[in-house]
């Protein structure tokens, strides 16, 4: 079981992520679709801190018997999800830039 101290730190940290992401979305520094992953992470952090035995329960469900290992697996998995999400965003933006380049090329057509 997590100590009370650790749970309070987790809760504060989760709330902090939530507040920062919310702030960035309001200021249009972060588009809301990109904020989804961060929103999920903050919710997860809060759930871990608030619900007693959450990590242990999930770990047991996955057949992992050490809590530390479960947290590590979750962290790595979460990071990979974020990186994949970022790759998708990069591809999307490259597509848009390509489209602009094509349109621009056609607009700047030179006649013989």
């Amino acid at each position, binding site marked *: 079981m997590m100590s009370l101290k650790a749970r309070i730190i987790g809760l504060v940290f989760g709330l902090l992520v939530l507040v920062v992401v919310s702030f960035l979305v309001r200021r249009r520094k972060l588009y809301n679709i990109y904020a989804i992953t961060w929103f999920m992470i903050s919710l997860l952090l809060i759930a871990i801190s608030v619900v007693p035995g959450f990590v242990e329960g999930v770990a047991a469900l996955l057949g992992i018997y050490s809590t530390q290992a479960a947290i590590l697996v979750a962290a790595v998995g979460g990071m990979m999800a974020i990186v994949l999400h970022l790759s998708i965003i990069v591809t999307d933006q490259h597509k848009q830039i390509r489209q602009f*380049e094509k349109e621009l090329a056609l607009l700047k*057509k030179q006649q013989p």
Partner: protein
Amino acid sequence: MNPKILVILPSLNEAKAIGPVITGIKETLPGCTVMVIDGYSTDDTVAVSLKAGAEVIQVDKAFGIAAAIEAGILYAYRGKFDFLVRIDSDGQHPPKEVKNLMVPMLNGSADFVIGSRFLGEADYSPNLLRNASISTICFLLKVLYGIKISDCTSGCQIYNRELITFFAKDRLFEYSEIRAIWMAHKAGFRIKEEFINMAPREHGVSSFTLGIAFFYMFKNIVDLILSMPISLKRGAKT
């Protein structure tokens, strides 16, 4: 009524070779529109092309030849062209022979014609590495899609109006010689190969160097395998 034909010539530093290609194609296909799609050449390619009577657009080479061809497809689609002819600007495809390739297009027996250098005796034969990459990709096309093509990386391709529309509108389309072939095949378009001679290169250097050759092959094979049809039905729609 004469069909509206657009000939696109993707080019990069081909000032020495492109002039005769443009005049040759204009003689072969009277009344066609020739458009040079230049990747911001550092030589006089643009000036030479304009002087030879071609329209010129420039698509930065950073976006690759794919974006260049896609711009051409977009232009053909919006300009309501009946046929789009894509040939290389280095003069390796004799412009006169494009007429033979137009035959199945004009009589409506094919939607997509590929000029293959392997269907007859071409003057130019690619080196070992290039041959190996071509046959690997052709093999994969055959196994994965049931498409029998002898020259799948040919830079000489002709599309009809329906195919131009398909490529211009399909969100998943991104040009590569190979992707164009299997996407057209999957959508049920009729593909036909005709022989086109290929002359050895006279001027300049091919952009297809050793490193690029490997990258091209790798990219296309990964693309082929990752976008493989889930059901491995051979020659599903033809």
